[in-house]
């Protein structure tokens, strides 16, 4: 089932939670609604589910208008952040609830309900906990039971409200992978809400970035990460280093800092956005960039070494005034950067935001730098 959201407005008192939101959710895809708290993502999900009603606008499932349809008739599965398991029922009773709630005519016989419940228990790998009560389960187990409960009646649409928000990092990772497999197996049209950009990018087929009740950008995760449309999306999708300054004759300047911008005609104020992996660290300034920084901290945990640096004689945008650069462990072992060392950031690819224009221009130095070298060899 495709889900179409058309011109949804929702206001809570003075607060505009959703501002004329329109969206298309493709069939069989896992879509993430990503945004900071207060961006309206949960409200949008609840309106799609029918748990909340919009002030204006329409919701349609496969072209069929469901705006006025009650949540119980929409045939959706909904998973809550805090599981919302029925505490006085066993795991098996919880899972059976949806089937037992069907109108008498559609309700399968008892034996069939039991069979379906044990199938679902096998699927979530918790058959041994069938007779336990929710209070006796761990968070991850609870959320799996909640998932099994929500899909017991075989809904075509699965909606998840921050499903991993209350779990610790390790369990979250396992469950994410598990949800991905589940989705691939059953071909739901799924939407999940998250404020965790990593989760959204890793898990989904399509990401909807929201901010202050508006949809900022909709795209596949890789595209979204590579080509953010706006400063907000850029900022929100992970760490970013910003150099803000004046562009004059194809060169961006601020204090000690200078970066040449090949192919840029713009004059006046501009911001250069750089991801941690788009920057190299060198012991001296490059031809196209002079960005002196002093090392503040080195973190060895993870597949990359994360180096935090403070600008020397210029300032980064943002309150913490810190740049972050990722280098490989091999590079770390070569250079042995330590706290207090002076380094020069060498940008390889950057994204320039100019004036009010929110669409960035991608700037690449790799080619312009390599060309002369090739000529020298010739």
């Amino acid at each position, binding site marked *: 089932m495709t889900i179409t959201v058309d011109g949804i407005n929702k206001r809570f008192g003075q607060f505009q939670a959703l501002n004329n939101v329109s969206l298309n959710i493709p069939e069989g895809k896992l879509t993430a609604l990503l945004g900071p708290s207060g961006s309206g993502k949960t409200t949008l999900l609840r309106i799609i589910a*029918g748990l909340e009603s919009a002030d204006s606008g329409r919701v349609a499932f496969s072209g069929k208008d469901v705006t006025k349809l009650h949540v119980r008739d929409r045939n959706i599965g909904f998973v*809550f952040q*805090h599981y919302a398991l*029925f505490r006085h029922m066993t795991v098996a009773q919880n899972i059976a*609830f*949806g089937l037992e709630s069907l109108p008498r005519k559609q309700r399968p016989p008892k034996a069939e309900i039991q069979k379906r419940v044990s199938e679902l228990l096998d699927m979530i790998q918790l058959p041994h906990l069938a007779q336990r*009560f929710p209070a*006796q389960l761990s968070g991850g187990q609870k959320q799996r039971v909640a998932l099994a409960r929500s899909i017991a009646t075989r809904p075509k649409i699965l909606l998840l409200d921050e499903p991993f928000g209350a779990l610790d990092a390790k369990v979250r990772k396992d469950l994410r992978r598990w949800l991905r497999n589940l989705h691939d197996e059953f071909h739901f049209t799924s939407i999940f809400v998250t404020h965790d950009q990593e989760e959204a990018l890793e898990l989904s087929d399509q990401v909807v970035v929201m901010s202050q009740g508006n949809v900022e950008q909709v795209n596949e995760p890789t595209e979204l990460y590579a080509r953010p449309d706006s400063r907000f999306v850029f900022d929100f999708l992970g760490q970013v280093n910003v150099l803000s300054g004046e562009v004059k004759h194809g060169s961006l300047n601020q204090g000690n800092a200078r970066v040449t911008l090949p192919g840029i005609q713009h004059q006046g104020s501009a911001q250069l956005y750089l991801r941690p992996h788009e920057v190299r660290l060198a012991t001296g300034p490059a031809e196209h960039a002079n960005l002196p920084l002093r090392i503040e901290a080195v973190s060895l945990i993870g597949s990359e070494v994360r180096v935090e640096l403070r600008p020397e004689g210029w300032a980064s945008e943002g309150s913490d005034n810190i740049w972050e650069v990722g280098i490989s462990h091999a590079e770390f072992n070569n250079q042995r950067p330590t706290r207090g060392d002076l380094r020069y950031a060498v940008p390889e690819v950057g994204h320039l935001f100019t004036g009010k224009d929110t669409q960035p221009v991608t700037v690449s130095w790799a080619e312009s730098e390599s060309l002369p070298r090739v000529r020298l060899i010739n």
Partner: protein
Amino acid sequence: MSTANQASAVIQQRWPRIGNRSKRVLPGFGLSLGISLLFISLILMLPLTGLVMEVSAMSFDQFWFVITDPRVVASYKVTALAALSASLFNGVFGLLLAWVLVRYEFPGKRLIDAVVDLPFALPTAVAGIVLATLFAENGWYGQWLSKLGIEVAFTPVGIVVAMAFTSLPFVVRTVQPVLEELAPEDEEAAVSLGASDALVFRRVIFPALWPALLTGVALSFTRSLGEFGAVIFIAGNMPYVSEVTSLMIFVRLQEYDYAAASAIASVVLLVSLVMLFAITLWQARYLKRIEGR
């Protein structure tokens, strides 16, 4: 080492979790527990012991003779039946009232919330006189009810009315906090699974409420068993028909027959205690199960 220290050392040794030092917020576990126990002894246990002492002066035959006197037995039936009716009525009406107070916003909500406690604050005798006047044949309510052929004042129905009046807050005040804490997600989850409103109430809301509701009804029942002030004014107090047990105790006292009064009182006390204990035990088991403690 002082005796208090010795005592707490023994407690620490036998029950390491009791009065655990690292968890103390209020100072002086020994002192505060001691004072609490002293007051419980002086205010609750000593009078009860006095009652038992008084009763133990009687032989069992005497005791049995007093508590099985036909007039007294009739009063047990009247009291128990009236208390049961009143507490069941309160169970339904109190739940409704708590529901309205928690779930809806309306002008005057705070006022109604405050008025619920009125039966606790009002002297029961005042309540009794007011109810008797209202329900008397020429009273505001009574005149209309008598036209329908319903007599309330000076009949067992009057006893039920008085008991229901004085014990309503028990139900409202035990159910209200539980209703307030009920997570809206549980209902939303049930509805999203296709459950009808009736089913949501029956299978999701009611099971969460009903330990509290049962406690409220039980408290209301035990309170009604002993109700005196409000009841005697409206009951009519006809032997075998509308005499309550607490009146029988009063009558024995009037006759300076303290032993007999104590004997009857001990029956009421025993029934109340057994009921409260049974409910507390059952509830502890139920809550242990659903809270996994």
